[in-house]
């Protein structure tokens, strides 16, 4: 048992935790960070990054497949494309390894002490850490809980060989012939689309009336169309009931039961905070349902204990956790910081991608704000045409009285990269006139943003 002391102890080495530790160390704070699996957390090891790697591989393969099927309008043909899936996974794992190694390197460079082990609170100021070869008792002035989240398991579909979570879905030994996905949220759709492109026969089972229920119908329409194009079956208002001998037993809205044939069943019905482990319940912190309740400075109900990231609630997004981590580090360093972000952009890497930032027209309406909106379809965008990516649009929502932009949404291939422009516009307090007055490079999809703003002002040029 080794006794350590530090000013800041971070529990969890995901995007929130490691950013917090790096920033704190940069500021000269004696910092220790503890991670029980791999640095980078869900995002780097089993989430954002590996899923995007798989999606990219699937895109490439799907393109070749379509060329081989003689569907290309570009005059490109291919023959018998094939995929060495284990090699694909090895490539993906290589990226993950590089990034997790990179995180450890960054922590070291900044001067934070990184320990691999499992942390348990002894009290609010003391944490025991058990690692493979050593154990520590760490006394810390400040502790940041950044334990993240994990996939929700359905009691009637326990995770195992056949029933898998998103982590399992990113490490399958081979491409399943038939894949059933329970839950039509963004994780299920991203992975489902990828496997459909890789040749799986994919069925999505969603209990609600439609998939991606957090988005409005206009935004999900292009996604639904591409799902259909890739042969994905979408069953809405259908409940998963349990494991059948050769698939998934479901109950449709009319009460009839059916079995969806599937080799694997991916359950993506949500994620829950990891707030039950690490002795967190013993601290008796104020909770918000299963989440740790925090204030605008990420302080919990116990002095000196902060919480950041997925364990603190929605939206469970890596970039939210990172911003919180950075903020907490600066608060611990004595800075005056408070969460004052205007918007947290969210990207759904489906086919095509969906980006949302700020308020949708419905959300603005629900808040009794009079808004004007402008929308520009990619069918009228030159760059989109040249990339065979005409599906989708950019939409801008602005306050009617002063034209301050309140929200921006887009759906279309490659629009994820537009999220930066959207978030910047919102954080800077841009008005429609600011976007309309900014030169957007031609030919790019970003012109859609300009045109949407012009459209809201009533004078779009290219439509």
């Amino acid at each position, binding site marked *: 048992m080794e006794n350590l002391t530090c000013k800041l102890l971070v529990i969890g080495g995901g995007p929130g935790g490691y950013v917090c530790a790096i920033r704190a160390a940069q500021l000269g704070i004696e910092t220790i960070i503890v991670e029980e699996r791999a640095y980078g957390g869900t995002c780097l090891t089993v989430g954002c990054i590996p899923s995007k790697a798989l999606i990219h591989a699937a895109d490439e393969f799907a393109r070749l497949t379509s060329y081989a099927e003689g569907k290309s309008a570009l005059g490109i043909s291919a023959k018998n494309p094939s995929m060495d899936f284990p090699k694909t996974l090895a490539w993906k794992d290589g990226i993950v390894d590089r990034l997790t190694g990179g995180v450890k390197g960054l922590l070291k460079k900044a001067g934070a002490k990184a320990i691999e082990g499992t942390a348990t609170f002894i009290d609010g100021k003391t944490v025991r850490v058990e690692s493979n070869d050593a154990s520590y008792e760490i006394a810390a002035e400040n502790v940041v809980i950044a334990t993240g989240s994990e996939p929700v398991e359905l009691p009637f579909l326990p995770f195992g060989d056949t029933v898998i979570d998103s982590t399992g879905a990113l490490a399958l030994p081979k491409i399943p012939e038939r894949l059933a996905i329970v839950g039509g949220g963004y994780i299920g759709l991203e992975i489902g689309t990828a496997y459909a492109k890789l040749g799986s026969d994919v069925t999505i089972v969603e209990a609600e009336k439609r998939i991606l229920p957090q988005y409005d119908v206009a935004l999900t329409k292009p996604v639904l169309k591409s799902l259909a194009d890739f042969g994905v079956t979408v069953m809405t208002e259908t409940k998963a009931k349990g494991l059948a001998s050769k698939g998934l037993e479901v109950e449709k809205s009319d009460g009839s039961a059916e079995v969806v044939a599937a080799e694997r069943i991916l359950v993506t019905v949500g994620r829950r905070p990891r707030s039950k482990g690490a002795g967190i319940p013993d601290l008796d912190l104020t909770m918000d349902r299963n989440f740790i309740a925090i204030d605008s400075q990420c302080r919990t109900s116990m002095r000196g204990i902060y919480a950041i990231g997925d364990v603190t609630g929605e939206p469970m997004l890596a970039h939210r956790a990172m911003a919180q981590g950075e903020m907490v580090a600066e608060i611990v360093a004595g*800075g*005056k*910081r*408070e969460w*004052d972000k*205007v918007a947290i952009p969210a990207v759904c890497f489906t086919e095509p991608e969906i980006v949302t930032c700020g308020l949708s027209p419905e959300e603005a309406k629900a*808040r009794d704000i009079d808004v004007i909106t402008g929308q520009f379809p990619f069918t009228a965008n030159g760059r989109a045409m040249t990339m065979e990516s005409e599906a989708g649009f950019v939409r801008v929502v602005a306050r009617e009285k*002063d*034209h*301050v932009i309140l929200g921006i949404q887009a759906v279309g291939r490659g629009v994820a990269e537009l999220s930066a422009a959207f978030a910047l516009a919102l*954080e*800077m*307090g841009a*008005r429609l*006139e*600011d976007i309309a007055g900014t030169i957007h490079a031609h030919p790019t999809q970003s012109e859609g943003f300009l045109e949407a703003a012009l459209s809201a002002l009533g004078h779009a040029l290219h439509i």
Partner: protein
Amino acid sequence: MAKVTIKLPDVGEGIAEAELTEWAVKVGDEIQEDDVLGTVMTDKAAVEVPSSVSGKVVWLAGEPGDTLAIGSKFVEIETSDEEAAAAEERMAEKESEEPAESPEKPAESEEPKLDKAEKHAPAAASSKPETSSVPAKPRTTPLASGDRPLASPAVRQRARDAGIDLRLVAGSGPAGRISHADLDAWIAQPQTAGFGSGRPNVQRSDEDVKVIGMRKRIAEKMSISASRIPHITIVEEIDVTDLEALREKLNAQHAKERGKLTILPFLVRAICKAVAEQPGLNATFDDEAGVIHQSGAVHVGIATQTPNGLTVPVVRNAETMSLWDTAGEIVRLAEAARSGKAKREELSGSTISITSLGPLGAIATTPIINHPEVAIVGVNKMAMRPVWDGQDFVPRKIMNLSSSFDHRVIDGWDAAVFVRKLKDLIETPALLFIDA
């Protein structure tokens, strides 16, 4: 191109130096002839210095607060050769024709511009000149709850570091967006209280205010008065019931055509009467020369609060004035002092002073003598008080006078006699009008 040097003109009565209080121009500005270059302060008044040429400002003599010698280089202006030659000619003319009048000229002929200078003066004293052009207004309508102030992340962070609640800051940008410049202006301005939100005031950062101009004069004068003069202060209770009755009656009859009487003209009259018997109190004491100059005339200084601070305009030859003339003169002088239009001679030469805080008059004060005078009479608040008349408590209007005297030249006895005299005159107002 030629360079013309504008020198600091003789702005006072034979003074050797003046304090620069504000620049109206900055280096690089294009200016026209007669444009104001800056404002300097003498002992008595702020004087604007105009330019004699048109051209471009290339050099300024110093920073506000600096003391500049009369005749020293004030501003350098780059101008065309013809303009420079013409200017030289004009200056030569001026010097030969009207050397004595020249100092008066800017102040009188440019009266409207003086107004402007007055308005700018407070801003110059409290904020950086380069930011004073940006309005640092507080938001007039509070933000609806939930409405965020519109500002970039960098502005928001700066505000947080400075402890400023952005919801209180008005943005000058479109849709009320708050810029760095808005924040600069907000930080530079003196903070006022919050907007009745029930929250404590936003945390203030420390601020150093340079003591310049009028405030510097006041500080200097007060130091001299308080450090050189050993004060003796006497507080006496005056029953003004009868005086108030008389005043009400006179006002009821004559206020319309002659103007309203306050208690001050009566007090001036009482002082005139009292010092007629005690000329040693209506005097100035030149302590360096060791001479007490007893004044024949009674020039009563009336301490007056102005936007720039305390000034003491003077009712000259008060002993020759009727009650209403005195009242009118006090009103006129107070107006002139407040608007900055009081002439130099109206602000100097008093032989005895009155200080009154009006309704804020308190029970007693310790007035500071207006050096080199030897006496000052302070008026305190009037209130209805129960007074024992031998049989009963009766309601009487009671007002205290707090008067200070230069104890070097006025003994306590003489001071007490003077105060007693004032009390007698005011309590029996008929005595004010009888030459006994």
